[in-house]
Every structure is written in C-alpha cells, then in structure tokens.
C-alpha cells in the first residue's frame, strides 16, 4: 500500500543551494514547464465563470453589450466616422484584440500577488504565473471572434485569406500584454501601487489606442505619439486584415514588434533581478 515502488534511481543530479545559486528563471523554462503553464492557464479558464448563473454566456454577452453601447455613444452621439465599415463591426474588431490585451495585462500584473500563498509554500517556477495569466483571456477572445464573424455575416462582409493573419497577430497581442505584465507583476510584489495604477493605466491607454475611432482621424502630428503605443498598430492591422483584406501596414507593425521585443527584454531582466526575493516580500 505504501508507495515504496517509487524507489529512486541512484544517479541523481546534485543541486546546490546558496545565496548566489541561479534560482532565476530562464526563457527555456517556458518550454520546460510547458505542462505547468498549461495547467495554470486551464485552472484560470476553468474557474473563470464558476458559480455564475449565466456561465460561459458571459464571454459572449460582455463584448455584445460593449459593442452596442459603444455604437450608441461613439457613432450615434459623438458621430465618429468609421469610414466605409459599419460601426458595430468596426468597433468590435478593435475591441477584440484590446480586451484580450487588457485582460492579459491585468491578470499577469496581479498573478504573483494573487498566488502569494503558492509562492511562499511551493517551489513553483515563478515565470509560469505571469506567462500563463496572459493567456487566460483566450477563450473569451475566441467567443468574441465568433461574435464578430456573425456580425460580419450580418453586414455581408466576407473575410479573405488575409484574415488568417489574425492568428500571429493574436500572439503579438499576448506578447504585448506580457511585456508590460511581467514587469508590473514583479513590481507589484514589492509595491502594491501597481494595483491602483493598472485600472487607471489601461483606461487611459484605451483612449490612446484607435479602438473606438480609426487612426485616420488622429491629426498627423500626433501620429508619431501613437506609433509609440504598440497596441495602436496591432489593433489597426488586426481590424483591416479582417474587414478590408488590405495590405498590412508593415512599417507600423515592425515598429510595434521591435517595441514589444525591447519591452519584453527589459521586463524579463527586471523580473530575473527581483525574483529571488519574491517569496520573502510578497
């Protein structure tokens, strides 16, 4: 009955633990702990709509009502022109990557603090928490995408092969969320100010990203400022590969990509520098 049959092989690696031992995360950890990443993501998805009456319907209702309210406010009241695209489809196609980004950013920023109990009790690979948290919004994203296709059908807009670019673009969205979330998660361990910054920051960033209005409405001198926001290019491109089948704006996208890579490298380096004390201060 006792699990003696799990007797161990004699040749086992010896690990050294001291004040300088490399307990820092490496990029390869993401592959090495792939199963753990998947389990954490699965856990967050699984408990997302637990003990709710409407259950997973929430994933469809939220974007639906957001779309309706935005259409009323921005199209009817503020008279924002969405060009030749019907406004509901226009705004939904922008909300899709935005919501995925914002949810991923919020979840990953809070991931370490939310799991502080785990962090101080289990030798869990720390990088797994923010990384898996950025992917938690994926099911909602897929449902919203379904809703978008229904809306596009309603307005008789047919996606073409360029729509497939949505897949790599979605990965860019996740990486963008991670590039900021990783840093903020590490800071959050020490200073809970992050908890106050995040809602504020995402709200301001939402208005500075062409989600509810097209980038073409932004006066030329301000465009440069917009190009500093990687989500700006990503949202624009995301929208036009689906709705217009247009050629990608490679320049803007490359710039956004470079920006995300730089941010990611900086965040990761900060994360590695601070993670040794996570369990002590969280």
């Amino acid at each position, binding site marked *: 009955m006792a699990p003696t049959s799990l007797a161990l092989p004699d040749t*086992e690696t010896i690990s050294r633990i001291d004040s300088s031992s490399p307990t820092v995360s490496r990029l390869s950890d993401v592959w090495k702990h792939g199963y753990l990443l998947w389990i954490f993501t699965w856990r967050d998805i699984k408990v997302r709509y637990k003990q709710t009456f409407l259950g997973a319907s929430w994933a469809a209702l939220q974007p639906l009502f957001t779309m309706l309210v935005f259409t009323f406010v921005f199209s009817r009241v503020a008279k924002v022109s969405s060009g030749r695209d019907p406004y509901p489809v226009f705004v939904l196609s922008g909300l899709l990557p935005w919501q995925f980004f914002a949810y991923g950013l919020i979840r990953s920023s809070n991931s370490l603090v939310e799991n502080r109990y785990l962090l101080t009790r289990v*030798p869990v690979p720390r990088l797994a928490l923010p990384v898996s948290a950025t992917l938690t919004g994926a099911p909602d994203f897929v449902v919203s995408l379904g809703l978008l296709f229904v809306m596009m059908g309603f307005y008789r807009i047919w996606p073409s092969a360029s729509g497939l670019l949505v897949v790599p673009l979605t990965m860019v969205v996740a990486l963008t969320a991670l590039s900021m979330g990783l840093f903020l998660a590490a800071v959050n361990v020490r200073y809970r100010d992050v908890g106050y910054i995040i809602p504020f920051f995402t709200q301001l960033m939402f208005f500075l990203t062409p989600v509810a209005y097209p980038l073409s409405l932004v006066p030329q001198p301000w465009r440069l400022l917009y190009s500093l926001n990687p989500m700006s290019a990503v949202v624009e491109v995301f929208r036009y590969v689906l709705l217009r089948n247009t050629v990608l704006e490679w320049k803007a996208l490359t710039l956004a990509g470079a920006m995300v890579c730089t941010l990611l490298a900086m965040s990761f380096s900060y994360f590695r520098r601070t993670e040794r004390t996570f369990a002590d201060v969280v």
Partner: protein
Amino acid sequence: MNEVVIRTEQIGKAYEFGNRRGLVDLRERFSQAIRARLRPRGLTSLEPDGNVWAVRDISFRVRRGEIVGIMGRNGSGKTTLLKMLSGITVPTEGWAEIRGRVATLLDVGAGLHAELTGRENILLNGATHGMSRREIRDVFDRIVEFSELGQSIDQPLKYFSTGMCLRLAFSVAVFQRSSVLAVDEVLAQADPEFQAKCLEAMMGAAKGGQVVLFVSHDLERMRSFCTRGMVFERGRLRCDCAINEAFVHFASEAERPVTPATEFLSEPVAVEG
C-alpha cells in the same frame, strides 16, 4: 543506501526586521532625507542593523532512508529551513547540496483551488509541485485510492473539510518521485486513521531510500517512528542526535522561558486575500 542526500554547511536566512521587509514608501523617503540633513555630521546612524536571523549556522548531513523529526517552538526556524531546502527562498549565507528532488508539503491549501474538484486538484497540485503530465498520469489512480476520499473526489474543493484537503495534498506529495519528502506540521489536521496511514507511507518511503523530514509537535508520535531528531531553538540547531536523546533535550528546553521578541518574527503568517 547510506549515500548523503542532504548536506548543509552553515546555512542561514536573515529577514529584514519589521513589517515591510525593508520596503520604503514615499513618506518614509522624505523623513529619511530630512533626518539625514538635520543629523550633525559624523554622527553615525542610530538605527540598528535591521536583520533578524530566522535560521543560522545550520550544518548537517542526512543519508538515504533516514526519518528526521524536527522539533522546536513556533518561530524557531523549522519551516524556514524546509523552505530553503526546497528552493522556495534563498539562503542569506552558507549552502546546501541536495541529491535529487524535494517534495514539500508545507501547508494544506497551497497549490489547491477551491473551485476545482478533487480530481482536478490532483492535476493542479501535482503540476505545481513539478510533476510532469506523465508522472501524474502514472500515479493518478493510486493518489485517488490513497486519499480514500470516495465520491467526494468529484466535488469542488470548497465543500471539503480541512482534513479532506490534507488527505488530497498528502497523497499527491507522497507519490512524487523525489529523494526528499519534507512534511511540515500538517498531519494534525487528519483523523487518527489517516495519520497512521501517512506515517506508514512515510516509513515506506524511507525504506525505499527517500529521506523524510518531518516537522511535528506531536512528540510521542515522532518518537515512535523517527530515526533521528533535530531540535531548533531560536534559529539555531541545538541538538542533532538520536530521536530519544533529542526528545529529552527538547522536553528540558521547553521548560525554560523564551524571550518573546524573536518568537514570532521568522515564520511569516500566510493570510489569504
């Protein structure tokens, strides 16, 4: 069989004194800056060295098959030692070498989720403790069987009692492929039958060559199955000897009064929320 599995050399962990572990907020920054200006030149800081040693100067070797009972009052450094050995926290000084993997059970609820069922929690808990998909699959049924949770295993964990959670957590810990099984004071949550089963399982693990580190306040029980005892007192290893001797040592030490100042500092209390 008598291969050394754990070796520590003057290992120690210091925490910064106080509530925020050395974190300084804006108000404090200002007052520090002002005080620094007001303070006459040449006068050194009056502030004491803000470190508290949770554990210090611990050296020992543990060989395969040993069952080590770790005793000590609250805050004497038992958990901090286990945390360093399992890689949760980094030692401030000294070092340790560990052959193979450490399976830790520091707390009943760590790595479990209230909204998931017992079965789902086995996956979650196994993965958070570093088990691969394959490892979990191989022992999944035996974990379920060992926990003796019956039909409750398909219920969300929020309807579990603490004792039932412990059954689940212990079952996962004992079926990990590890060379060290470190169990902190958690068995008190279980009923006597399951406690006996746990002890039997730990003895079986030791027979198979695993090291068992067992923290408990149940001295009688420890005496019955540990082979070696360690007594911690205010972060120091006061006694490392045969269990009976350690027991006597601990009993006599327990009669001495302790200064409460260091009592509660070293083991941070986990508060959810």
